[in-house]
């Protein structure tokens, strides 16, 4: 896709290289403004930025009637 280093991407996103690394490794969830910048930069829909890994395994709270 792009042959950018983390430092290159950080410069384009106006964040630190550590922030890019934290997003890549899943340690930091980007805010909506940053996610929009990512989506624009990679020309992809914003929902593609967020990988909901729990979606397939999450319990159906409505069916269970969870009180919280």
């Amino acid at each position, binding site marked *: 896709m792009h042959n950018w280093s983390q*430092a290159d991407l950080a*410069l384009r996103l*106006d*964040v*630190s290289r*550590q*922030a890019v690394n*934290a*997003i890549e490794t899943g340690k*930091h969830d*980007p*805010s909506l403004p*940053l996610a929009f910048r990512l989506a624009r930069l990679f020309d992809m829909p914003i929902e593609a930025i967020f990988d909901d890994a729990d979606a397939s395994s999450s319990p159906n709270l409505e069916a269970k009637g969870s009180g919280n």
Partner: protein
Amino acid sequence: MSIIKNWKNLSARRKTYWVTLGCSLLLGIALGVALFDSAFEIGHSVGSGDPLPDPLLSLSPALAITMVVILNLILWPITWLWHRSVDEHEEQAVLWGGLIAGYALIGLGGSWVILNWAGVVPEISLGATIAIFSFVWTGVWAYKKFI
């Protein structure tokens, strides 16, 4: 260094971030040099087993007032500008650091007070509690930002 090499390409926010960090570093060095004589005297006493010098006599009032003015008139605006210029990832690291440092202060400081009531440890030291708060805050910030 990539920061210096890419300085022209950095945003205004990132430039403010690095300038405020640089100013803080210079300020820290200046205050450290100003405190050197007193710190050396205290360190020498600790190392040699001599009694600690009287803190009221080891620092001149003029120097102390100058340092307090610098701390309050210069460091606060620099800190405010730095906080406005951190990115969201570092902001989280700073906030978590402060929160956990607060818990550490309550836990360790509270324990110290209770042990002091029982006569197990000497009276709580404000300098030590500030040091605990600062070290824990810095440690958590560094862990969340770099690891």
